[in-house]
């Protein structure tokens, strides 16, 4: 074997080594959550309320709380994201302003989530007087997932073939009619995948809602606008800090597994829709 070939093989070997190590670490993490979490999962765990500060009972209201927050956030966010994308693609013609708009959305995407929590509390909790409540949480998460939805919808709208628009223009449609008849139906997949990714992001977020929207124990369904909810994320957070108590830890792993499943299903559906589209495009 020549030296050149030897070098080639060594580096390739190293690359495989790094890749396998990286994948192994991630696989170990997933396996850990499954192995540690599955003993806790049962019908009672999923459908009972928690008792004794989360040490006994289930996580029913935690699941409901997480679902309320993520669904609310997506519902609030979707019209805003859709509108801002349409304004950007249909009414903005100057490339500089378009670029600036994109830059602002990308910057929003980079903001650490804890800052959304801080300023969101000031804005929604104090100025709008929602206090520490599920409404504050929904609004904060809606702002947080805005870039996710925006980018996904924008991509879909941009990829509509030019002659679709030309046909709409030739029929004399106003911008509003064009949106309804051509752009929305043609970018539906982007709207769906964007919303799913946004839901996944909202479901996985803890820092932004832990001191603005949630309470740990004694909370069921919110009865008014200004009541907090309890969520899977904050439930895990509190139980994890009692890591010396095996009972707390078991329930924390169980809640973690449920949360992970929610997020994974959302992302997997997104990937599935996307790969289906790609196959269609190749045909």
């Amino acid at each position, binding site marked *: 074997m020549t030296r050149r070939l030897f070098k*080639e093989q060594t580096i390739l070997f190293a690359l495989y080594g790094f890749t396998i190590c990286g994948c192994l670490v991630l696989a170990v993490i997933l396996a850990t959550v499954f192995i540690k979490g599955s003993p806790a999962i049962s019908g009672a765990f999923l459908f009972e309320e928690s008792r004794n500060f989360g040490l006994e009972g289930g996580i029913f209201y935690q699941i409901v709380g997480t679902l309320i927050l993520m669904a609310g956030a997506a519902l609030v966010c979707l019209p805003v994201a859709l*509108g801002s994308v349409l304004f950007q693609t249909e009414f903005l013609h100057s490339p500089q302003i378009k670029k600036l708009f994109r830059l*602002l959305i990308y910057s929003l995407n980079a903001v*650490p989530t804890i800052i959304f929590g*801080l300023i969101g509390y000031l804005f929604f909790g104090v100025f709008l007087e929602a206090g520490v409540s599920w409404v504050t949480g929904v609004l904060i998460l809606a702002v947080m997932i805005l870039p996710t939805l925006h980018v996904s919808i924008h991509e879909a709208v941009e990829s509509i073939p030019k002659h679709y628009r030309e046909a709409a223009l030739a029929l004399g449609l106003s911008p509003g009619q064009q949106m309804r008849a051509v752009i929305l139906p043609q970018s539906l997949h982007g709207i769906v995948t964007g919303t799913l990714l946004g839901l996944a992001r909202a479901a996985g977020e*803890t820092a932004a809602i832990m001191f603005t929207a949630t309470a740990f124990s004694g909370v069921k369904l919110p009865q008014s606008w200004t009541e907090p909810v309890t969520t899977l*994320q904050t439930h895990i957070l509190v139980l994890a800090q009692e890591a010396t108590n095996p009972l707390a830890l078991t329930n924390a792993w169980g809640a973690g597994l449920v949360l992970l499943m929610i997020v994974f299903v959302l*992302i997997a559906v997104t990937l599935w829709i996307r790969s289906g589209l790609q196959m269609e495009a190749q045909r």
Partner: protein
Amino acid sequence: MNVNKMFPERGPAFWWTGFTALIASGTIFILFVSLVVESVPVFKVQGVSFLWGTDWFAGESYGALPMIFGSLMVTGLAVILVLPFALGSAILTSEFLNGRYRLMVKAAMELLAGVPGIIYGLIGIALLTAAVRDVFGLIDGNTLFTAGLLLAVMILPTVMTLAEDALRAVPGEFRDTALSLGLTRMEMVLKVVVPQALPGLAGAVFLGLGRAMGETIAVMLVIGGIDRIPQPWFDLFAPGQSIPSKIGREAAESLGFDLQWSALIALGLVLFVMVMALTSAGNLLLRRAR
């Protein structure tokens, strides 16, 4: 600026979408302005010494240096740890794996990038701290090193995916030319593709840095929570504090308008500026790569 010329058609659709666009684009300004306005009180009391003070005693003095230091340390450590794995697997996936395996790896990475921070936090507090304690013979496993290690695992999918995209963006002609000159596959990758993709790879790393710096929950649970610069400063196996973990720990007890709250917002402002600098640099490099 002529409004009639810029926007010839102004029906209801225009006003409705324009309003939502204003919300979407104005949010980042509102965030920044609120951070600045709300942090004024602490700067009035402490002056700029807030930034390099080393003591943080609620009600007495507020010094941000230990938190800034902690953030830089854990982020830097995370990037050093993640680099070989992220770049190695990006190169392998982009240049040596065939289409189907490549898509599988990409899908797995996308799935993993979505794992919530609290899950990493749980793994950290339940398993990693004990492992770090036993392996390195420490009294307590809650250290800057533990936080950096956890962050490295967290940002691996992000950095790997972006780096892989950057490598794929190098045109095929470069590869064909290199191969036709008699370079081996690996020589082609290391001497042609990687140098060509270097801005993009750097951009991927910068974006990963930005993400790591802003991560709250996982870091908060394993970093130790002590507002002190370790002695000596490079001692990674000492407990510390990062900016987001400090905010996360103390925001709930000081929700409101006293000086403590203002000091936390000021910390948020420092974090915001650092993360924005990293992310802008990253986006700039990625755009140049394209």
